[in-house]
């Protein structure tokens, strides 16, 4: 079989994985920083370098993510729905529901026992339920995103937000900071707002256990906990939730080519 790479060029992060004979051997994640093409090259290079490979060794490259549509290189382009589902299935075969929250959208997918999409729902064209707002707020709070989960758990009195719009949430967060509301409470409030919004989307499907959350936002444990409460199911998170799309892209591409 040889080597296969998978790319997920998101609007915020670019992710690359390398497979050797169906085994994940390397991955790399870096911010996209606006230039999709460059990010794709860099992240793939890094992932290959980690296992001492060169581009020429790759038999197939599959790709997904918003950025891919803007790159002229001819990757094998696959929809994100299939990629994430497949990727999560690879890591956790018992999965039946995937909630993927990236920078630009939230998606819910039901999977078949074989790791294909059985049903799916994509959030509408509004930043409210996406990870973007987290990034914005992390700037406002001058706090690393990595801290969000932990901080949120420390909250004593989650702040209430009166708006759903990501832009106005930012404004409100700024005022809260000025008023001296603790960071923890702001983050917890934000997590709650997001969990409510995404939860109502999840409810539109009959979801089943096991339920897995992926995408960068899944790194925020506070949000995951609130989502669990919201949907009444235990939610698992892969160790590397960001790379499930890339994994799926690699697997699906290899499979298609082999058949």
């Amino acid at each position: 079989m040889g080597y296969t790479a998978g790319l997920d060029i998101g609007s915020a992060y670019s992710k690359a994985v390398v497979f050797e004979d169906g085994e994940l051997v390397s991955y790399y994640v870096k911010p996209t920083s606006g230039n999709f093409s460059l990010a794709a090259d860099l992240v793939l290079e890094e992932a290959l370098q980690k296992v001492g490979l060169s581009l020429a060794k790759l038999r197939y490259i599959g790709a997904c993510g918003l950025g891919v549509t803007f790159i002229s290189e001819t990757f094998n382009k696959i929809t994100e729905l299939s990629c994430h589902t497949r990727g999560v299935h690879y890591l956790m075969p018992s999965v039946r529901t995937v909630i993927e929250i990236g920078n630009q959208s939230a998606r819910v997918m039901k999977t078949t026992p074989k790791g294909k999409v059985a049903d799916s729902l994509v959030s509408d064209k509004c930043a409210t339920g996406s990870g973007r707002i987290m990034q914005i707020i992390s700037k406002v709070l001058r706090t690393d995103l990595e801290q969000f989960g932990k901080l949120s758990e420390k909250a004593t009195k989650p702040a209430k937000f009166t708006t759903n719009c990501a832009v106005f949430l930012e404004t409100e967060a700024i005022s809260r900071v000025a008023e001296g509301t603790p960071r923890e409470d702001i983050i917890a409030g934000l997590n709650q707002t997001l969990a409510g919004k995404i939860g109502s989307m999840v409810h539109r499907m009959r979801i089943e256990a096991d339920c897995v959350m992926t995408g960068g936002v899944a790194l925020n444990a506070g949000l995951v906990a609130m989502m669990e409460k919201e949907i009444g199911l235990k939610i698992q998170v892969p160790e590397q939730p960001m790379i499930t799309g890339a994994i799926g892209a690699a697997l699906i591409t290899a499979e298609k080519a082999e058949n």
Partner: protein
Amino acid sequence: MFVAGIDIGSTITKIVISNGTEILASMATPTSAEHRRLAFRVMDDALASCFLSYNEIEYIVATGYGRINVPFADQQVTEITCHMRGINFLFPNVRTIIDIGGQDSKGIKVKDGKQVDFIMNDKCAAGTGRFFEQIADVLGVKLEDIGEMSLRSKNPASISSLCTVFAEQEALLRLSEGASIEDILAGIHKANASRIHSMIGKLKIEQDVAITGGGAKNLGLVRALEQRIGFPLVVPPEPLITGALGAALIARETATKLTPQQLKEKKAKRRLEAVTFFDDPKRGSEIVL
């Protein structure tokens, strides 16, 4: 008789102090987080600029997003009514008003000096001043300049996303594809004009049409709206303060109806203290998410 109107907007706080016939002082200053709590500080400055004290002001009307948190105001009136009054005073022939504020956009219909209908959007940042602030920010240009710049475009970029957050990213993308800032701005203005127009359209637009609020300072937006609507818009010389002006006009009108005794009682109730409008129980803390 001295009166004042204070318009605590979501973004900018505006004050007009008048002697009943002309404007003695007017000012516009950002509604910073600080000012959300300390509205009287802005008022202090305004009063100082025309050498007046609170007690000399017979009647104060507060309006805008933060109107309920002006403890020294004698009356609260919504910004819809105040903008209408302000515009009606400046341009008696205006039948339709478009108000583009920091966090909302509104349409108001006027007939015989009275407002007969209005419409309002405050759910989504698209079509509001905030949108333009964000875009100016990511493109690294001054807010004051984006209007003029957009007018220099020959080939407006297509901006398909109306979500402010995504439009920002789209703008950056277009930039990386080589579109000029002018073209991107023109695209942004066009998209927002069409959004605002379709909202105002529900009111049956009648001439004259005025535009007020901070959005009226954006010439690019004014032109783009004119193109959508099909005729020129009337723009006040100081569009930001129309609401505060309207508030001052209402203040005068009310004050003349009250007896000196009543005015005195009112004044006695004025307080100068810090309040936060997010802590107000009516504003949010009840809200279940």
